[in-house]
């Protein structure tokens, strides 16, 4: 927390319909670290994560107040360019959702949208990102096959490669391993750890053990509020708040 | 108030089932309700559905009377179709009152051959081939549905409805409407659609296109009977208006009717029943024709 924060959330409130989902959130997500968001089901973890890249905007009936500064710029400023903000952040969802096209096109999709048309340049990018996620050797002979042919674990890595191809600064993951078997899970976890050299990473997870394995910082959310935020070991092993202690007990038992 | 009708010892009873042409349906309902006043024990079941349906029903014994508004096909006669004519209506050629040559057309009339060349042969394409100078093309309208009116009009030329040229429009009112909206239009209609049954005058917008019956190139006094519906029906009844395009409408039985209530009903229709005909836009049969038809049920 010595560096300047990468994402700084200030007095964020989110309502959906007349429900108050997030309640006065204030947090600074550190740069080039892994931060995990934990909390019971329905506490607002996903909502918080989605507020970072303005995906919340598409939710029916949502109203958002407060600020989210990314690199010092308020993304909820009406003048802010939403596609630009989103390009900065790669999203990895719970289950992999490959786009309905070939493996190659999945990775090339983002760069193409942002104007890269040259075949050579694209080829290079695709290869680079598939290598970064360890997929290259597994798929290099069938780049034109449909992405849905891959196993779930491979699909999830493909989605990560796809996100990395638009050179984001931040990676957001929402329970990105919960559909995977242990082998695939540990590959993804290792990837997260290796990627934090270049990216800031925010993960939502239910598995406290995973949070411990991969993250530097932990945010505990409960009932739409941030209860505790601090370095991993502190929050998991030595929580300050009663609520946190209660929650992480399940992890210790 | 009338004193209550003392019913004579009434032995006319039973059920009469009727189905068929829409053209005859309303007047048949009227006749039935009047007949019921005289013979309360008779029950009527009347249903509309088209001439073909009525004929099919009658020939297959499902109903007693089929209402027929079209010619009976030889194949139907073979199956035992037996027709008694009960009233008439007529088809009249029409055009738009806004036609630039209207005045000349009314004065000169149109000959049968000219109609034939317009409606069937398609050799007359422009209004100035009939009268006047304006070379406006003739827009022909015809009935799209198989209908008595179309058939009768075609029969005037010895043809069938399918031989008529023109844009098909659904139903009598549709055809009237189409001509009413198009200054260059020509069509034909059952006369009830051409006259207002209240004022007895022609409706605005469309006009009967007079037929030059004797072919002398102008409408003589005895050819000029279109101003009111009553004049026209009189002309139809005494034959000054050609037939076709006037036509007889009939009851169709499977074989000669025997059941007492049926015979009584037909007799009623051909006698007292005729007085309801004209107020409803139909044309009464001539005396001679009534006698001829009555014979068919005796």
């Amino acid at each position, binding site marked *: 927390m010595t560096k300047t924060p990468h994402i700084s959330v200030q007095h964020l409130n989110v309502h959906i319909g007349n429900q108050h989902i997030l309640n006065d959130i204030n947090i600074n997500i550190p740069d080039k670290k892994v931060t995990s968001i934990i909390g019971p089901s329905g506490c607002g973890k996903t909502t918080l994560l989605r507020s970072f890249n303005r995906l919340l905007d598409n939710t029916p009936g949502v109203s958002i107040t407060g600020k989210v500064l990314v690199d010092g710029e308020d993304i909820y400023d009406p003048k802010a360019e939403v596609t630009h903000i989103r390009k900065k952040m790669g999203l990895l969802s719970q289950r992999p959702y490959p786009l309905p096209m070939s493996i190659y096109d999945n990775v090339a999709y983002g760069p193409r949208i942002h104007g890269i048309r040259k075949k050579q340049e694209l080829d290079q990018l695709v290869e680079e990102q598939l290598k970064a996620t360890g997929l290259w050797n597994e798929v290099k002979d069938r780049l034109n096959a449909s992405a849905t042919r891959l196993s779930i674990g491979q699909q999830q890595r493909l989605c990560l490669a796809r996100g990395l191809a638009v050179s984001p600064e931040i990676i957001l993951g929402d329970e990105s391993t919960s559909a995977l078997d242990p082998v695939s899970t540990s590959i993804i976890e290792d990837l997260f750890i290796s990627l934090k050299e270049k990216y800031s990473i925010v993960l939502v997870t239910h598995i406290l053990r995973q949070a411990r394995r991969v993250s530097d910082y932990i945010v505990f959310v409960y009932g739409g509020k941030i209860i505790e935020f601090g370095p991993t070991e502190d929050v998991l092993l030595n929580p300050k708040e009663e609520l946190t202690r209660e929650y992480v007990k399940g992890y210790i038992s | 108030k009338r004193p209550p009708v003392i019913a004579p010892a009434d032995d006319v009873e039973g059920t009469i089932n009727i*189905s068929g042409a829409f053209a005859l349906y309303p007047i048949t*309902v009227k006749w039935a309700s009047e007949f019921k006043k005289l013979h309360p024990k008779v029950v009527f*079941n009347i*249903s509309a*559905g088209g001439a073909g*349906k009525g004929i099919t029903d009658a020939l297959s*014994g499902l109903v007693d009377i089929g209402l027929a508004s079209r010619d009976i096909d030889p194949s139907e006669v073979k199956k035992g179709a037996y027709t008694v004519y009960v009233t008439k209506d007529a088809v009249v050629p029409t055009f738009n009152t806004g036609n630039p040559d209207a005045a000349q057309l009314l004065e000169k009339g149109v000959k049968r051959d000219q109609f034939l060349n317009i409606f069937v042969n398609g050799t007359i394409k422009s209004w100035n081939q009939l009268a006047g100078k304006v070379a406006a093309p003739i827009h022909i309208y015809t009935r799209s549905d198989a209908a008595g009116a179309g058939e009768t009009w075609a029969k005037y030329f010895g043809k069938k409805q399918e031989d008529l040229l023109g844009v098909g429009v659904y139903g009598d009112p*549709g055809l009237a409407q189409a001509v009413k909206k198009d200054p260059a239009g020509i069509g034909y209609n059952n006369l009830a659609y051409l006259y207002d049954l209240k004022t007895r005058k022609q409706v605005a917008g469309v006009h009967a296109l007079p037929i030059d019956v004797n072919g002398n190139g102008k409408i003589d006094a005895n050819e000029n009977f279109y101003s009111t519906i009553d004049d026209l029906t009189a002309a139809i009844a005494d034959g000054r208006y050609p037939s076709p395009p006037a036509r007889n409408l009939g009851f169709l039985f499977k074989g000669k009717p025997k059941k007492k209530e049926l015979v009584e009903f037909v007799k009623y229709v051909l006698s007292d029943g005729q007085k309801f005909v004209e107020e409803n836009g139909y044309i009464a049969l001539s005396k001679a024709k009534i006698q001829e038809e009555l014979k068919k049920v005796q």
Partner: protein
Amino acid sequence: MRRRKAEELFFKILMLIAAIIVCGSFFLIVGTIFAKGLPYMNLDMLTKTPGGGFYIGKEGGILNAIIGSLYVAGGATILGLLISIPVAIFINMYMNGKKFLSDSLRVAFDVLFGIPSIVYGAFGFLIMVYFGFRASLLGGIIAVTLLVIPILVRTLDEVIGTVPLELRDAALSLGATRWEMAKVVLRQIRPGIFTAILLSFGRAIGDVASVLFTAGFSDNIPTSLHEPAATLPLAIFFQLSSPVEEVQGRGYASALILTIIVLVITVLSEILIKKFSKHKS
């Protein structure tokens, strides 16, 4: 970036225009019918049968056609439900994964769905003549039932498809028979059944071609299944072909009545659907 934004804006505007046209057509139609029909509307139209032949007479109303239509559409929908619920259940729950067979059945019902109502009407009439059956309320109900069965089967089939397989498994693993499972599923899809009823009733009450030859047409309210019955769409059709302007006006008023009936049914069913969705999460 500018170009990408402009493209989005362009299509957004197109979408808005399209949505306005599609919804606007509703107002245009209802508006036209109201404008034409309202002047001729009166209480008699709703409460009396026609006097002196609907075609000539200007008295009375079209109660016979309103009742006839309700009889025909109601009867056909009930009869159709009685047949199509078992069929939909059978296809989905009793065919034990014989995919080819159940898919073929679905195609068959799709084809039946596509068969024009005029063919059902004409075909129904052929059968009636064959069996020496006069045009009657019963004939109309049967022809319209043929018409709505594929609609009902298809809709129910779709709705049943949305029930999670796990729910069926849950019932089965409690030892339920397939029929008992089917009952749970039926409960789950109650709102869907309402949609199906609405669709079928709407189609049944508005269809002309299937009743044209089968139900007959009469000025009286039918008192038994064997009497001919008038229906609203046919009454409209006939009245509009009358030479008398006033009767044509009554045709528009009848059209207005039919439109209102259909709209009321639609709105009612939307409300019912909401009410019955209680157990759905």
